[in-house]
């Protein structure tokens, strides 16, 4: 009944090639956008923004970025935490050095700086593959965190080595710093998420995405049919790091406001983002969102149920949270190794035939 192509005729190539060719799917997408842009900003409060939506949106950007590298191009990376740190420190240096420039431009520039760093650390991928590459990116993770801790220039010689985001405005409305309204910070992140997702979606279904996927599926075969591994792999590293850098910049400036590199961008962050795309679904933009939602919302939800509703001790709840989240991850991966995105695909298939499956 739902998601049916029947009766949905296309009369131009443009229509035929759009992102959501099925009418129902397209309207669902518009509805999600409408709710996100026109309903939530009016209802949001500090708790929903800072505890739920900001981390979800920002991790979604990071997950999209890593998904391009791991899911589409097949280059395993454990350096996402380090690349997020590059984005955060880049935006901090830009914000404090050029206070008159708009913060949104700084965030994009921070993404660009991260892309350059990402390409540098992506160079070994031309020679090494698989687990060995993962180890090389792990080196990036540790090196970058060490660098930002070690060189005082990056944190403007502050006594504690913490960086804190000063207040910056967009159209006169503060979006970073303490006096930010929850809707303003939410909107900034939402705009970035939307644009990033649209860019990522279109990159991955264009010729560039096809080159990445060819490399992922079999790099020798891809080389024989004329895909240049150098440009394909490095462009994947660049685009991926660009998104991760934006995520890191927003994570520091809009969401947390003050970070300490070892604590905020440690190896745990790399694993968290990697788990997001594995649970969400490798090689799927929707999967990045689903994985981010799963790993951000579930702990908060469990905490609210166990401590808030049931009134259990906080330490017991925290330990149970680990077990439940861990258990669910295993259950999901056994039941559906291709992640939540595949679950969604299967649901769509089922819904097409519902209520008369054959």
């Amino acid at each position, binding site marked *: 009944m739902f998601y049916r192509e029947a009766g949905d005729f296309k009369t131009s190539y443009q229509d035929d090639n759009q992102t959501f060719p099925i009418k129902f799917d397209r309207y669902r997408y518009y509805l999600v956008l409408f709710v996100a842009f026109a309903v939530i900003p009016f209802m949001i409060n500090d708790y929903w923004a800072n505890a739920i939506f900001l981390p979800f949106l920002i991790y979604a950007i990071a997950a999209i970025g890593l998904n391009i590298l791991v899911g589409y191009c097949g280059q395993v990376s454990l350096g996402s935490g380090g690349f997020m740190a590059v984005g955060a420190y880049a935006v901090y240096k830009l914000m404090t050095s050029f206070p008159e420039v708009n913060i949104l431009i700084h965030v994009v520039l921070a993404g660009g700086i991260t892309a350059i760093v990402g390409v540098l650390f992506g160079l070994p991928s031309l020679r090494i593959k698989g687990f060995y590459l993962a180890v090389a990116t792990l080196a990036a993770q540790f090196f970058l965190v060490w660098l930002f801790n070690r060189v005082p220039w990056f944190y403007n010689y502050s006594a504690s080595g913490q960086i*804190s985001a000063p207040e910056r405005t967009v159209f006169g409305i503060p979006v970073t710093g303490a006096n930010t309204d929850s809707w303003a910070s939410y909107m900034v992140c939402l705009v970035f998420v939307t644009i990033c997702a649209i860019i990522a979606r279109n990159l991955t279904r264009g010729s560039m995405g096809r080159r990445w996927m060819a490399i992922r599926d079999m790099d020798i075969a891809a080389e024989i049919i004329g895909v240049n591994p150098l440009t394909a792999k490095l462009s994947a590293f660049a685009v991926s790091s660009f998104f991760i850098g934006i995520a890191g910049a927003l994570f520091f400036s809009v969401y947390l406001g003050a970070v*300490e590199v070892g604590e*905020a961008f440690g190896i745990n962050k790399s694993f968290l983002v990697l788990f997001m795309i594995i649970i969400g679904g490798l090689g799927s933009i929707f999967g990045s969102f689903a994985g981010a939602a799963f790993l951000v*919302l579930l702990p908060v939800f469990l905490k609210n149920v166990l401590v*808030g509703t049931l009134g259990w001790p906080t330490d017991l709840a925290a330990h149970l949270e680990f077990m439940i989240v861990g258990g669910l991850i295993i259950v999901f991966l056994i039941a559906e190794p291709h992640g939540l995105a595949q679950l969604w695909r299967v649901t769509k298939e089922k819904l097409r035939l519902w209520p008369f499956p054959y």
Partner: protein
Amino acid sequence: MKKTLITAAVAGMVAAAPAFADLTFTALSYRTGPYAANGIPFADGYQDYFTLLNERDGGIGGEKVNLLECETGYNTEKGVECYESTKGEGALVYQPLSTGITYQLIPKATADGIPVHSMGYGRTSAKNGEVFRSIFNYPANYWDGASVAVKYLLGENGGSLEGKKIALVYHNSAYGKEPIRTLEEAAKKHGFELSLLPVDHPGQEQKSQWLQIRRDRPDYVLMWGWGVMNQVAIQEAVNIRFNMENFIGIWWSGSENDVLPAGDGANGYKALTFHNVGSNFPVFDDIQKHVVATGKAAGAGDQIGTALYNRGLYAAMLAAEAAKTAQGIHGVSAITPAQMRDGMENLVITEEKMASLGLPGFGPSFNVSCQNHGGDGLVAVAQWDASAKSWGLITDFVQSDQDILNPLISEDSAAFAAENNITPGCN
């Protein structure tokens, strides 16, 4: 999946909204994660003191205390979630017990008008209340600690540290870096040589640092550690046969958990403290009677009288006294966070007051004022007795070197004020 989760989360949160009443205090504690061993006793002490007030006195000034506990796991993101979820319920004061979370909360809590009390941690220059209106760090801060450690060593060496070598082993984070500037100034003033040895989180691997200490043979080692880092450092010091008498930790490196694993080898290890140690105070009898005997003790109830339990208790006592002061100033019993801030700013702790609370001589006497949110910086040195398995104070509470600290505090707070467009002032 996403939608069902969100609806379920909504249902959970709607059901979670508790009754609005009483005086709400929050404990952003960590009973899990890498620093749990230190977080648990502090959280127990904090909680038990408020339970005691509820059971024995019926709360503070006739208002029951409602303590909301939220687990942060020493993680900044969880700390944000905890702050946002508790601030809507009228939380009067935040004590996050984490320098990272404190840095996070300083701008947020200031904008929301909720005071933060970072007792012996956090941003040192918050002592300047003209810039940091809602942030308090009485009775002592890291720079006081560093300065008193140097002062103590001066006393040991007949007033001169000329030509001595002092090594600082520190947690490589905002917390551990705090004392460096003070120690550098002190090194200039007193002519000792300072070497810095950072240890990365969580601090289980310190072989190379201690190898360096064995090679350089510093006369004294200072330590700014937390969690497992303390135990490892003390064990490593024992392994290289470093004289424990010459090893001084900050107050966060001075709990039973830190010295017990090293056994007899840790005998003589010293740590700074800004409150007294042990359970020889009348208030502990009340805790036994009203809290432990009635089965209301927090956690496992096995931490009573330990160094960090006492610190949690002290933090709760200072918060309760500030609430009483606020009730006195504003003439209402159900105070708001803004009134709580006034109470903290006018807090006076005297010997008589502590004695009447059953804590005679437990901490230094001090006054808080708008200009000085940090107390007088009175710090004592405690020493570990491995055979008796107890800490004992070996000095009085001595004041830090204000000549070194005051310029540093004005410099750092002025930088913060300039960065955030704050005009310093008391109104």
